């Protein structure tokens, strides 16, 4: 019988279920996160116009660079201020 040493982090990630989609955006705040990829802003501009047209509150956010994970402060800000977030990844 061979005993081997575990080369992994020995962590089991907690599987977190997504929150249920809201039936309606009425009265909710939608965050639009631009990850700084080229032309992601064009897509988000269209969404912002569309949502504003429906009377939905929109807040815009931007990651400093697509190459790195979003700073913790930015994530906290979005969680605090928004009910829904749309992240744009474009090229």
């Amino acid at each position, binding site marked *: 019988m*061979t005993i*081997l*040493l*575990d*080369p992994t*982090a020995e962590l089991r990630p907690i599987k977190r279920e997504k929150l249920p989609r809201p039936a309606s955006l009425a009265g909710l705040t939608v965050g639009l996160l631009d990850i700084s990829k080229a032309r992601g802003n064009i897509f988000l501009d269209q969404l912002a116009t569309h949502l504003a047209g429906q009377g939905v509150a929109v807040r815009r956010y931007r990651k400093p660079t697509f190459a*790195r994970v979003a700073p913790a402060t930015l994530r906290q800000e979005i969680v605090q201020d928004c009910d829904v977030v749309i992240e744009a990844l474009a090229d």
Partner: protein
Amino acid sequence: MSFFPPDGLVAIVKRGCPTCELVVPALRELAVQPMPLTVYVQDDPAFPVGLTAVSDTTLEASYRLNIEIVPTLLRVVNGQETARVEGWNKDNWRRLTQVADLGEALPDHRPGCGSKSVEPGMPEKLAVRFGDATIASRRVEVPPLLDDIEFCYEQGWSDGLPVVPPTEERVFRMLQATPRDPQEVLGLVPPNKVPLTVEKVAINAVLAGCKPEYLPVVLTAVTAALRDEFCMHGILATTYFSSPVVIVNGPVAQQIGMNSGVNVLGQGNRANATIGRALQLVIRNVGGGRPGEIDRAVLGTPGKYTFCFAEDEAGSPWESLAVSRGVEPGQSAVTLFAGDGVYAVVDQLSRTPESLARSFAATLKTVAHEKLALASEVLLVVSPEHGRVFHAAGWSRQRLLAELHQRLLRPGSELVRGANGIAEGMPEQFGGETAVSKFPPNGIHIVHAGGPAGMFSAVIGGWVATGSKGTQAVTQVVV
């Protein structure tokens, strides 16, 4: 676990040793002396004939008493060793035992034999068996009848090639190559931001096939990869090709037998192959960075298995890459560059540095896309036959770099989107610029390596996310 040898005289012997056979009469004499005698025998409890011996076939006593030679004779007072003699030496045995006429009929001196506890591979086995190996990682049992290597595949520990099963003995042996505490944390490894210990690096170095003497270089490469400016998370997650290219400088490269010559970027050298692979396996296994999950490369590159080589410093016309990046000459260092594949530069006709630099520039301008500028750094691997041209003309590294930057300037009008009928290109605001640089000011890295014949060099493009928004090459001194 503590082990106290019995007080009095303690002898450790094995039947397979002629010197142990020789000293049996002396041991018989000691057995009837007032001072108690304990004889441990490593191989055959029936030896020595006529004496009662304690079996040490587990080698625990030999291991705990640090026996390297048999016979060894110890004097023990209150559980503490106060004197030791190895092999047979009449005067020394008489002095230790205080028996004036001990072994009168024996020769004056005979060297002993190697203890079974120090046979190759045995110290690691004994350290593991007797609990001195301070390895904290989870033990995983391979089910009976299942092949060890197949089991490693099933666990998801492999990059696709077979791995060396990380047994406790192998990992213990690997850890002996560094004075660092196995539980020392080197940093947080992406993408899962997991604290990375020296021990986890050692386990993955075993998986990769490293020899223990490679471990300091692996630890350095991993530490460099965790530096914020290298941006390992992004390099892993990107849809681009990139992967760490590991360049080793300084005396350690020769000491561990790295290749800096023929086929330097290719296969066939264990140190080159396994050091680069160990870094990749750390990211995969500890960080959780697996292709198809966080690793989203469209195409990837074969360098994602391993991409590691040493610079040919002895034959170089210039100071080494590491020295050019601020490392003291004579120190060993590892430089990491986020590179993609290898592009060939063929120039068999240039005999002047000006001509050759123009050839280099012609290939360099195509990195990522001919119309993209300031998008990435680049690594230029200059071969010996090309290096000789610069050496003969007295061109320094700085002279060549200045020439390349100059040759790579392009008018913005040729680069902007739509120019030359190609939609890809630089944003419109570059259109009015007369001279746009291809690479950032410190973005061309030159390293000298390769076989002695062949007028080819190589360009290795960098990740198209550079500077503070992406990756920068990093250099880390080997400690």
